[in-house]
């Protein structure tokens, strides 16, 4: 069991008090996580972890240093604080350093669920067994995870910032593999284990696996494409990381640099960074203890943004949106809870409107070829289908794409009417519908 929010808050305050600097900040992260992993229709890895780390940022004038430890005895904590000060002492002055943030009102959202805290190894194993059974009785093979995390973050600084919050998440994934090249995928992410339905998840993946058996070949070229929410989420991750952070914009490495207020994407695209949504997960404050503001990034295709932290807000002369990552980091502030506005079209209606195109369940191993245009390459996996005359017809072997996300999102034909929360391992998630895009560049295919 992790330490409580109050204990984390006290620990942060203690670290600030122990730091002999002009300004001091402490971030305490207490983590109690467990993950049950299965493959070949059996649990093969099953792990648990408890840890608490304290990270201290010391400021001497305009010089800063950071140190962290997970040794919480008095001597180790004091040594950590002194290391941060020692680093600050030798750092050159940063003339543009604005000082640590002042306290601001943080919206309180309850994101701890008792059902998730009680989601123990036996309960996870039973959930895994229920998922597996949906594949086993069909003669398929299931692999995936059932994970639970219960964490608390507390942030204090010498100006009186005193933020603390607990969060619980359950995340489950399942890949169901057939015997003839087919595979299907389903995932679930939420705060409350009581809302998690493992049988339904296992059924969704197994049905898709059966449907995608015996995949065929596909010629390279530009195709209309229906991206399921999991695939859209990958695109949004890269768009947010490369396009909507203040540092990338300031360094002119973002497609929005110099174009804020211009129509760069389809008018069907409205994208918001919103950690305060009732449907998302994660913290409502950033790693400086500043409130995460709801931040419009794209409004009906017109680009806004970017998100900021205290440093970049001061440097650019704009408000602090509260998106600092743990200090120091090479990325600057980043959006972590993207929300793409829903449209009015069901996935079935999207497919029905396509004469010839593709349906993509999810992507695999996506990487960046051009950060400014957000040109990505990657593969599809676990359910890629040809759409012909408004129907899903032949499953196709996984295809490689090389595609600018900016270009793709400039030609959106329809936005899905149902949104799904899709998340990485921890820290944030995207709330996104499916998209029908006019053109997606297929550049290869696996065997």
């Amino acid at each position: 069991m992790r330490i409580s929010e109050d204990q984390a808050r006290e620990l942060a305050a203690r670290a600030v008090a122990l730091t002999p600097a002009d300004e001091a900040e402490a971030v305490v992260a207490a983590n109690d996580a467990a993950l049950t992993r299965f493959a070949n229709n059996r649990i093969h890895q099953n792990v648990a972890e408890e840890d608490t780390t304290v990270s201290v940022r010391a400021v001497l004038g305009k010089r800063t240093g950071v140190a962290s430890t997970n040794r919480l005895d008095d001597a180790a904590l004091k040594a950590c604080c002194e290391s941060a000060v020692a680093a600050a002492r030798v750092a050159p002055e940063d003339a543009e350093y604005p000082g640590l943030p002042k306290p601001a009102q943080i919206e309180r959202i309850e994101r701890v669920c008792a059902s998730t805290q009680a989601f123990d190894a036996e309960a996870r194993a039973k959930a895994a067994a229920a998922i597996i059974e949906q594949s086993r009785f069909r003669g398929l093979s299931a692999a995936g995870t059932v994970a639970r995390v219960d964490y608390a973050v507390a942030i204090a600084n010498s100006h009186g910032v005193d933020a603390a919050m607990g969060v619980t998440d359950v995340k489950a994934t399942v890949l169901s593999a057939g015997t003839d090249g087919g595979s299907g995928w389903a995932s679930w992410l939420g705060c409350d284990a009581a809302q998690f339905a493992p049988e339904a998840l296992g059924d969704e993946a197994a049905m898709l696996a059966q449907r995608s058996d015996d995949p065929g070949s596909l010629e390279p070229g530009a195709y209309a494409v229906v991206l399921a929410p999991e695939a859209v989420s990958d695109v949004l991750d890269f768009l947010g990381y490369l396009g909507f952070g203040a540092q990338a914009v300031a360094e002119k490495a973002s497609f929005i640099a110099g174009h804020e207020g211009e129509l760069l994407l389809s008018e069907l695209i409205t994208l918001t960074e919103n950690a305060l949504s009732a449907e998302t997960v994660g913290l409502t404050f950033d790693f400086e203890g500043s409130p995460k503001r709801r931040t419009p990034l794209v409004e009906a295709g017109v680009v806004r943004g970017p998100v900021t932290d205290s440093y970049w807000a001061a440097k650019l002369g704009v408000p602090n949106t509260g998106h600092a990552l743990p200090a120091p980091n090479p990325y600057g502030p980043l959006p972590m809870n993207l929300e793409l506005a829903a449209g009015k079209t069901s996935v079935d209606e999207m497919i029905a409107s396509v004469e010839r195109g593709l349906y993509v369940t999810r992507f695999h191993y996506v990487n960046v070829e051009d950060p400014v245009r957000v040109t990505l390459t990657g593969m599809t996996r676990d359910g890629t289908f040809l759409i012909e005359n408004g129907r899903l017809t032949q499953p196709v072997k996984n295809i490689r794409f090389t595609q600018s996300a900016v270009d793709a999102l400039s030609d959106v034909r329809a936005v899905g009417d149902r949104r799904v929360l899709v998340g990485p391992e921890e820290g944030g998630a995207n709330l996104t519908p499916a998209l029908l895009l006019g053109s997606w560049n297929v550049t290869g295919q696996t065997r």
Partner: protein
Amino acid sequence: MKDLVTTALDAAASAGSTYADARVVLTSEESISVRTGRVEGIESSESLGIGIRVIADGAWGFASTSALTPDAIRTAARQAVAIARASAITAAAPVRLSPVGVFDDVWRGPCEIDPFKIPLEEKLALLLAADEGLRTQELVTVTSASLGFIKVEKVFGSSEGSMIEQSYVESSAGIVAYALGDGEVLPRSYPNSHGGQSVQGGWEAILKLDLIGNAPRVAEEAAALVSAIPCPATTTTVILDASQIALQVHESVGHPTELDRVLGDEAAFAGTSFVQLGDLGSLRYGSKHVSVVADATVPGSLGSFGYDDEGVPAQRDYIVHEGLFTGFQSSREAAAAIGRASNGCARADGWNRIPLVRMTTLSLEPGDWSFDDLIADTDDGIYFETNSSWSIDDRRLNFQFACEIGWEIKGGKLGRMIKNPNYTGITPKFWAGCDAVCSAEHWQVWGVPNCGKGEPMQVAHVAHGASPARFRDIQVGVGR
């Protein structure tokens, strides 16, 4: 540390485990980064904890904690056993481990000058001078320079009787100049991209890199990229530099030959492999010029150790020999599944993660070409340097790589500079097209400290020895 391990093993046995191992790991890190003249961060960190892995009721359980009191360790050991019993709900057959000897040993990695004892001022001065050397071209608008040091001290003990103490230091450094073109950002890195070069060793390894001396050249090349020609979309001969070969080996030989992937253990996350169990000794992986060896004994490599994290001694084992697939990388459990002994490739990312099958130092063995002769022998093609992007499918067949820079090869000579060159291929066809590998004179071990695998995600520090090599009939300029 040994007392803590013993406490854990005793508690696991009392709780009913039939096998247990425990690792106490202390990791100390220091990182310094400079960006465009500004010190971006000076950070030190330490992490200490214990991970306890058990078999009970024939299934695995693992629990880890940073609380190192005897009571907390006993609680974690009991939790590991309870988790194992929960795992048994779905277990088909009891876990079997391949046999291993019992060792009581100490191993230390090489380190001539302890980097943690070098004053921060000296490290900062190096980075600031290198960064200044990068900011010598008008078109270079963003620069970065970084140093990183890691010290790992760990003790492994098992219920079979082993007690192994190991420690090593890793040092890394790199610089990058980013030139701003017309709607594009063009990076140029030294000595490698993605953080530079990483080795087992100390401050002496940093000094050898001569970051300051190389910075102006790196900046010039970045600036020149702005007016370089785009990569043609064609099928041609390519020559890859050693650092790109290292990543090519990593993605298209290393991962597909991890036995746990072949057995399906990683299916849902990183994927499986096109390599099948029955391919051992029969699959033609590449041409006769392609020999790849897994060697955890290479001095100064990120992939070296005395014993892996299951207590298996470091080994040298051919994975591909003269083009023929000859061996998997394995752990004790994976090896037992095919009736073999582990070749010592089980590694864990810290105290709070279980060992998985990971690469060690997986190297393409050198051939006998000089680099100049190889270029002179090539009528038409492209020479690629320094990776910028990588992607490969979930069975490790279809890959696509991009590099920071390339040059045309025309009539046996390097010609015009190419920006953002990329290439794609299918793994066995690509390696079958290898017709020349440069000699040991050009061979170097490249650290790869960012190899992701597993859930929860683990980041392994591995390495690859490589020299430049030539490949025929490669599709380049994909999507250009």
